[in-house]
């Protein structure tokens, strides 16, 4: 299972990457594996929207199921990955790269320190798989 070091993770199987106060958000390889073939990424936010940590900001549809996307931190949406509109499979192909979903300008960037590091997330995945 690919769980890159240096990222922070949520229990909902999202990854976050902090760059200054900007937090890039995507879903983990484990989430992708569970979902299977992703056919649609619906981002219900636009650039400029304020979102609150824990609130859904979109949905992801695979052939078999639907899953919510939750904001890992509060802040303002500054970028969304428009490419996923036409190419949702980017999430399957490159979950930690081209499959990113949104960038949030975090109100409290240090909030991501509360999230799981790669070791803690690996433990969480182990528990989720059973």
């Amino acid at each position: 299972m690919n769980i890159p070091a240096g990222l922070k993770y949520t229990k909902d199987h999202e990854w976050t990457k902090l760059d200054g106060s900007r937090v890039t958000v995507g879903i983990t390889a484990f989430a992708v594996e569970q979902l299977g073939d992703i056919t649609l990424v619906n981002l219900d936010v636009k650039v400029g929207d304020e979102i609150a940590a824990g609130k859904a900001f979109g949905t992801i549809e695979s052939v078999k199921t639907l899953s919510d996307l939750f904001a890992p931190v509060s802040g303002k949406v500054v970028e969304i990955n428009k490419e996923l509109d036409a190419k949702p499979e980017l999430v399957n192909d490159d979950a930690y790269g081209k499959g990113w979903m949104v960038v949030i300008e975090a109100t409290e960037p240090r909030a991501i320190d509360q999230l799981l590091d790669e070791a803690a997330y690996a433990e969480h995945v182990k528990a989720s798989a059973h």
Partner: protein
Amino acid sequence: MADTAPRLDYAARVMSDSPPPLRRTSLYDRHVKAGARMVPFTGFEMPVQYTGIVDEHQAVRTACGIFDVSHMGELEMRGEYAGQVVDYLITNDASKLVDGQALYTCACNEQGTILDDLIIYRAAQDRWLIVCNASNHDKMVAVFEKAAKDHCEFEDRTDATALIALQGPKAFEVLALAGGDAAKLVELKSFHFRDAVVANVRCTVARTGYTGEDGVEIFCAWNDAPALWDQLVTLGQPLGLKPAGLGARDTLRLESRLSLYGNDIDETTNPIEAGLGWVVKLDKPMFVGKAALEKVKASPLPRKLVGFEVTGRGVARHGYPLRDMDGNEVGICTSGSPGPTVGKSIGLGYLPAAMTAIGTKFLVDCRGKNVEAVVVKTPFYKRS
């Protein structure tokens, strides 16, 4: 000791609130070894996918897929009157079958709603096999066993019988490699079956399936299935054969507009509104549900099951409300998913009869978001 054991076991079951443990088919180890994700399904641990639903779906459409469907129920009725009892329990006409012929049908209750959809097989005038959905196994055992009483013999063969489906344009090429008389199975007509030896395993092969592709379903002894599976996988892999799970089975059957019991049909739906009027033979002298279905047929249908395409951005799922263009709730989605071969988001659902014409627009309520959809002709996919 021997005679106290069952009583202890009974006591343990009565006292425990936990659900019974999941059962495994004889192919369980094969699935795990092939990397399948196993999920609970109608009391069994079954493979939902191996390499990916779309990948397996495409393998079945373009080459061949092999499915373990051993969880399904196999019931046998034997004796001089077996055929008549079977015919009385089903909506389709069993009396026209010849030995070696199979028939898709519904079994209804007295209210004319659907107890199960089945395939029945006439092995001989006095020997009939019934394949029922795993989810309805206990119910259908009760129905057939009760009807058989005093008229014919009933046997539940489910635990002794494995079932492997080999589906796709290359299914018969794979069989041709399996030795014995398997090469000649291509001569079987659709919905016909016969005993055969495939890869040294004695089995019964039927030209039936649940994918919309050509292919066969192979019955064999529970413990013979692993050897048969291994042989077919080894022989078929160079031709593009892949093991396929429940996920692909669902997308394949949906594209071909085959009903799924528990989703599209159940005890609240009748075969006429479900688009299964072609398996209801009201000219039969009698069968369970006939009077109720005559009434259904005599008046205009309030609702019908239709196929639709989601034209907006969304995927319709089982249970989502369907709304008219003004937003009023008018129906319900019974099945839906992306269709890997048709390349569209498709579904089935019940709509008021006035809204079932091809081209009618309506809305699917995808968890609070209304997404546009249109009634289309089915099947969504038909093999060329």
